[in-house]
């Protein structure tokens, strides 16, 4: 980075435009690109590239541990796909050395529960947030006194660290807490399977709907007013204008917001880890894929690496489907918003 910094102050070259392109130092002519992006690429290769490759390698290694059949300590060694089948097919090593279905309580048997919970949170939260986010965005889009106050209020749930949010909702959903008081109920929110899932969804929707609304609002702001004017002149009702103008025109921004949120909920960890500790119901009603990885880490790195690789590939595939088939074009959409905003 420091080399690059000194290059900015490098030679105030005499005006010789035809020679500039060759120079690595002249920033305004595109010559210095490799040097400008190198620090970033090197850093990302270290902090993301290395761990990902390492995780894949680890996932094909056996976790050292005690062999149940012999009682002897076995070192690692190549594992083939056994770490993957441990999760995907819930296969554990049997006493004789073969494989058997993982017993209840073994983390391997929790994979599909965790997958269900993660996908369930994602689908339900994002569906609620689309509706609420659209509504919030349309209100924020109107002209009124105190828009600044509204936007600041909306940013507060976003700014509070999720760890604090989780503790806050843990208190709100406590047995003697205000949620039961307001609802006149006596529910052990974090104990039941569905009540704990509900608590997670409510807390997360509270925190992230404002963010969703801001992303949708950015899309609303580029719809030209005269489109609405023309529709109104033609006698379109408010509902017709919403369905036939607002929705189609805001769709690119909406898709981007949905993509961001889907990828975000698929990796959800902080909230269920603190609010319900992954528990509820029979003990794993709010265990997500990320929580399962963390639970596994201290029981065996390599098996955890396999699970984190599965999680990563799954999230990657979802993102791929969104971009490829559902037309969530982040870069183009945001470019359009920028141009529209100018």
């Amino acid at each position, binding site marked *: 980075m420091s080399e690059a910094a000194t290059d900015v102050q490098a030679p105030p070259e005499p005006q010789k435009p035809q020679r500039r392109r060759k120079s690595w130092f002249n920033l305004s002519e595109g010559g210095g690109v490799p040097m*400008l992006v190198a620090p970033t690429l090197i850093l990302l290769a270290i902090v993301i590239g290395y761990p990902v490759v390492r995780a894949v390698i680890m996932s094909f290694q056996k976790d050292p541990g005690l062999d149940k059949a012999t009682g002897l300590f076995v070192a690692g060694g190549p594992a083939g796909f056994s770490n993957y089948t441990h999760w995907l097919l819930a296969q554990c090593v049997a006493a004789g050395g073969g494989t058997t279905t993982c017993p209840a309580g073994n983390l391997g048997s929790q994979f599909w529960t965790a997958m269900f919970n993660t996908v369930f949170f994602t689908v339900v939260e994002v569906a609620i947030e689309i509706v609420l986010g659209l509504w919030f965005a349309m209100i924020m889009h109107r002209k009124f006194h105190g828009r600044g106050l509204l936007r600041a209020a909306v*940013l507060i749930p976003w700014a509070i660290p999720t760890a604090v949010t989780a503790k806050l909702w843990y208190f709100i959903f406590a047995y003697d807490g205000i949620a039961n008081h307001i609802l006149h109920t006596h529910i052990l929110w974090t104990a039941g399977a569905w009540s704990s899932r509900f608590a997670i969804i409510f807390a997360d929707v509270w925190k992230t709907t404002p963010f969703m609304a801001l992303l949708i609002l950015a899309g609303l702001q580029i719809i030209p007013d005269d489109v609405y004017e023309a529709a109104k002149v033609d006698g379109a009702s408010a509902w017709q204008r919403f369905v036939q103008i607002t929705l189609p025109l805001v769709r690119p921004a909406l898709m981007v917001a949905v993509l961001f949120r889907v990828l975000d909920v698929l990796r959800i960890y902080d909230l269920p880890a603190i609010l319900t500790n992954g528990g509820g119901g029979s003990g794993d009603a709010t265990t997500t894929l990320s929580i399962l990885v963390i639970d596994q880490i201290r029981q065996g790195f390599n098996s955890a690496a396999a699970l984190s690789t599965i999680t990563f590939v799954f999230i990657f595939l979802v993102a791929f489907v969104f971009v490829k088939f559902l037309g969530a074009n982040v870069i183009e959409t945001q470019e359009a918003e920028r141009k529209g905003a100018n």
Partner: protein
Amino acid sequence: MAATTTATPQAAEQAGPVTRAPSRFSWSGVRTYVGVAIIIIWGLAPAYWMVVTAFRDVGFTFDTTLYPTHVTLDNFRTAFDTSLGNHFGLALLHSVIIGVVTTALAMAAGVFCAYALARLEFRGKYLLLGGILGASMFPPVALVTPLFQLFTNIGWINTYQALIIPDISFALPLTIYILTAFFREMPWDLEESARIDGCTQWQAFRLVILPLAAPGLFTTAILAFIAAWNEFLLASQLSGPATQPVTVAIADFQGSQPHQEPYTAVMAAGTIVVVPLVIMVLAFQKKIVAGLTAGGVKG
């Protein structure tokens, strides 16, 4: 479907505040303000409850009066008390150090990459931009296993670098993406004009571009800092007593009785953590919204 009946806003927009003076009662206006009130309550009510509880005597933890009652500062004293093994004060310091260093590193590398992405044409530019966006959406859980093993082997657990290095993985892409958006809106022509007026390239950068870019740089730094400050997953696995940040400290906060949550003290600790963030958000609300919508920041 109250939200869909936007009958007046367009008209109001064009006429501006002039029409607002004589404007009489309108249902649409009422609906707007009802909606606004709902959103403000949505945003503030739970946070308000945290603050009210933070100031409430521990004996009245579950008092459900909506305004402050049994007001005391004891909870803040408990939050900073170290006799139960909580080191909240230290954790604040750790979080500041981790946040500042992470932000500084991300900005130092990111500003050059963002400049290239915003100002220069080169092959693979959109691939790079897409890659950086993808990196900002990267699940941290995919990093934590190999890093945990590596840092354990080389004795880095309980050191700052064990938290700062993985934090770069989200802070840097975030920084680049937001900065690229800010840089694109800069009036770069002025740089050219300054050159024509006899400035050197460095002078043009220092005297013209830097002051103009300062608000964008500052906002980006705030957003990167907030992201690092709020991080929990990596910190919960890779930190130790000497580096534990506030998010982990609050999650693990111990009460005087085992299995009994010290709610009021935790709410006090939460209030302390949130107040600086809220002040920053209120002060830079407009810029932050611009940065947020450009970067798609996770919370």
